[in-house]
């Protein structure tokens, strides 16, 4: 028996291998923004807000045939165990980049030529899988803004702990485990739009991990759908 999964297959926080942490999504939390969302994913607490599409400033940034997307992923200094410098780290710059690419695969950029879409992600409290929680919040905020999107995007990580492939690593499992693999996914189009991993995976483990990530993402999708429907259509199902 390992140190992260007990003899009954239960992880330190009481979950089984294929269980997600609790997820809560709220839409429209930042009134000034054109679209926004708040997500709690385990102990992650993250706000995503969208401004635009709006005129590109400075103008030379604009493209004649489509919108450009800017993304800033930022962690609050109090979001981590030890205070994090407010200056953007290399990690934050890289996450901003991979989040932006994931969004670009969903947003219908051609509909908004010569404009800019600004997406801001602020991590108020971080836990394992914060980029996956972020992309889910971003896609909720984009849908809230009414920007045309080919599909929603959801994110959820998989990883390897005690030699086993499990869903959705916590902070502790990420640190102590053998591998972490954040995956973001467009559920209707069945496309992977964000994939990074580190750790040691055999080819078989890798494939198993991808399939588990897709399964987990489908669960996150149900939660995201429910949040959007609740916000836009109320809880009552009127006939």
């Amino acid at each position, binding site marked *: 028996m390992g140190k992260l999964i007990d003899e009954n297959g239960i992880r330190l926080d009481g979950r089984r291998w294929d269980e997600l942490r609790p997820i809560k999504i709220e839409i429209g939390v930042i009134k000034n923004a054109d679209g926004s969302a708040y997500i709690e994913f385990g102990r992650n607490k993250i706000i995503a807000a969208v401004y*635009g*599409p*709006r*005129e590109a400033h400075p103008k030379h940034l604009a493209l*004649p045939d489509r919108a450009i997307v800017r993304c800033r992923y930022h962690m609050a200094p109090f979001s981590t165990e030890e205070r994090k410098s407010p200056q953007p780290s290399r990690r934050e710059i890289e996450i901003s980049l991979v989040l932006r690419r994931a969004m670009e695969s969903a947003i219908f950029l051609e509909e908004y030529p010569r404009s800019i879409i600004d997406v801001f992600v602020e991590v108020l409290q971080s836990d394992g899988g914060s980029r996956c929680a972020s992309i889910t919040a971003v896609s909720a905020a984009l849908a809230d803004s*009414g920007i045309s999107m*080919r599909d929603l995007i959801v994110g959820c990580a998989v990883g390897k702990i005690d030699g086993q492939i499990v869903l959705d690593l916590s902070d502790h499992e990420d640190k102590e485990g053998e591998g972490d693999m954040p995956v973001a996914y467009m559920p209707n189009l069945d496309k992977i739009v964000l994939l990074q991993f580190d750790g040691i995976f055999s080819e078989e483990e890798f494939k198993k991990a991808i399939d588990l990530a897709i399964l987990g993402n489908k669960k996150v999708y149900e939660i995201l759908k429910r949040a959007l429907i609740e916000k*836009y*259509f109320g809880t009552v199902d009127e006939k």
Partner: protein
Amino acid sequence: MLHGSEIIMVLVRTKVLPGDLLHDSYQGQPPPHTYKLGNKLLSLKVGLVEIEGKEVKLIPLAGPYIPRVNDFVIGKIIDFDAFSWDVDINSIYTAHLPAQDVFGRDFSPQTHSLTSQFKVGDILAAKIISYDRTKDPVLTVRDHGLGKIVNGEPVKLSPSKIPRLIGKKGSMAKIIESKTKTKLIIGQNGVIIVQGPSEGIVLAAKAIRLIEEKAHLPSLTNMINELLTREGG
């Protein structure tokens, strides 16, 4: 009078989210707010979809204002140069009102001063006369009911919900106007000017906020009536 058998098409409104499948073999160009993937028709927005035989109509519940030629809009002068004013029309793109539209063909920047007509901060009712993907929208104020608006309170509503505020043949707007003793100037760009006594303006603004929140509900008209009767006295 109608004779014979009649097939009544039941209009079904379905809630949709981006990526939802609307039709699995759709022929022709995709209607607004949808896109095609092979022959599949998918949604680009959070909204309501009406499917009637081959007709698919998606009513989005959020989204920026995209200018269309002939739209009646309400805008704010934000800048000007010797030849035109820049007008914020609550859209992605800034609109332009050419000085010739106001001063006529014999306009010359030497003899006419743009500030004599409109100043920065002025609110205008205008119509879009040209717009495409490559050029900013151009406005005109040369028509009945267009030009500077001198009184009233601007209220915003999601542009996609403006049709709900207007209602069938203007019914919803008429209810609000009569019960609050106000006049509504409704821009299709999501800006509304409410004119009238201040209590009326406050109540009309409340009704517009209710439309913002409940636009998706079929019972909206009843809810507005209820609000106006309850608070309008």
